[in-house]
């Protein structure tokens, strides 16, 4: 490797970070703001929420992972805030330690941001066993900290009392696990999933088949939903969303690097074949 190439390789990460930082500071062009559409993700989420009765019981499976949570965090906060504003009684559970750690942070934030005074959030804590835990929770849930009526219903019917299930997924446990283990056992209530982009290929078939009523699987979907919902932006939903201009710059740079790497292998091979060399 030549000195020049070595220097360029060492400087490339600095250049990337600087370019992204500058893009982050620039104002976002209007053309990058997604418009909520009726049939789009935001419309589906809102339509699902509109069909709920007054004071619905919403079960939230909270198992994001640290590596992908930043892209979902603004949406999760907005969704929780909207559920609270709609008077939902939230029963929340984590099946992974990582999800539990992030949930504790979110619950602390909700408390500090003064969630509505009459909000009901029942924290079921960390339940080990993933698939086995979901099967067990589908039958019966012990919730000693819940209001008496809710605790009785949870003990008798488990997650079957849910009017809506919201799954915040990560790489380990996500909407697929809930679709496979919980939904068939609790009568398939309406289900909204929030998942990282990497899970999109795995989850889109569930939306097509109707097993998931709505899926927010990309930051752009998330931005559209936030634009449509916008509950109390200074309160419990407050967050810094992903900067779309910086994202665009990053994607263009990534495509450039991949193209350069591809060309670096293909062009010499083509030149060699013209000269009659075997690859």
């Amino acid at each position, binding site marked *: 490797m030549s000195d020049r190439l070595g220097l360029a390789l*060492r400087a490339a*990460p*600095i250049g990337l*970070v600087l370019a*992204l*930082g500058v893009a*982050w*500071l620039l104002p976002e062009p209007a053309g990058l703001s997604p418009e909520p559409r009726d049939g789009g993700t935001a419309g589906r989420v809102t339509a699902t929420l509109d069909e709920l009765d007054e004071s619905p019981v919403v079960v939230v499976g909270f198992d994001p992972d640290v*590596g*992908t949570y*930043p*892209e979902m965090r603004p949406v999760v906060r907005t969704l929780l805030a909207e559920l609270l504003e709609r008077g939902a009684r939230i029963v929340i559970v984590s099946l992974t*330690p990582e999800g*539990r*750690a992030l949930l504790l942070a979110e619950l602390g934030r909700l408390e500090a941001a003064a969630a509505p005074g009459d909000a009901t959030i029942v924290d079921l*804590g*960390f339940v*080990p066993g993933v*698939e*086995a835990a979901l*099967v067990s929770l589908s039958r019966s849930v012990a919730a000693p900290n819940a209001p008496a009526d809710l605790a009785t219903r949870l003990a008798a019917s488990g997650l079957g009392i849910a009017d809506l299930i919201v799954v915040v997924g990560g790489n380990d446990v996500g909407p*697929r*696990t809930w*679709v*496979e*283990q919980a*939904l*068939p056992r609790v009568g398939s209530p309406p289900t909204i999933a929030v998942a*990282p*982009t*990497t899970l*999109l*290929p795995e989850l889109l*078939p569930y939306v*097509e*088949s*109707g*097993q998931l009523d709505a899926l927010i699987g990309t*930051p752009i979907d998330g931005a559209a939903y936030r634009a449509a919902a916008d509950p109390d932006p200074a309160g419990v939903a407050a967050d*810094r969303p*992903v*900067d779309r201009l*910086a*994202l665009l710059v*990053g*994607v263009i740079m*990534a495509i450039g690097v991949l193209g350069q790497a591809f060309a670096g292998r293909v062009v010499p091979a083509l030149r060699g074949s013209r000269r009659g060399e075997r690859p």
Partner: protein
Amino acid sequence: MTGFFDGLPADVLATWVAAILTIVVAGGLLGERRAFGWSQHLLAGLATGFLALLAIREVIVPRLIEPLLADPGSRVDLWVGLGLVGLAAGSPWLPRSLTAFPISVALGSLAAFALGGAIVGTVLPQLATIIARPDAGPAGTVIAVASAVVSALVLTSFLHGGKRGRLIGWAHDTGRWLLIAGLGGWLGYLLFSRLVLLLDRIGFLLGDWMGIGL
């Protein structure tokens, strides 16, 4: 909230710690290995401590010790479970025929839950969606057939050993290329996801820590 300009002392401290650690990890990207290695050890230690705390506070004490202390006679299931855990923990010293039992139970249960769920929750509903689409127009039918063909070709690519005819060989090779294309697409999603993570950290340093652009 910005750690530089307002907030409670605890928030300021948390923001500074997070900012310093972010810079240390970013330093690893730029070639600074010593502090980066130290931060990896810190992460491993914190994760282990959190796991231990979680196991003791939310699993072992409330789900095992408290029920057993409250009514030791009526929880036979917990005693059996505890016995199996003891057998697994003593595997270096106990006969293999004994220690194989709890591990077999764990693996068998895991496979049964996963397989049963996959068939009931994924395979059958997805097949039903492909076969019986109530609102399928010509485009929907073409997509459904294409999905089925791609699935069959990729499954064929997992055939190994034995003699393959010309047709199966072609299907095997095509399926393999489709699989590689799928992995490439997934890599693109992964790259996008990690880019968002990097942007989140840059936004944290510039916005939450330095207070720029707020």
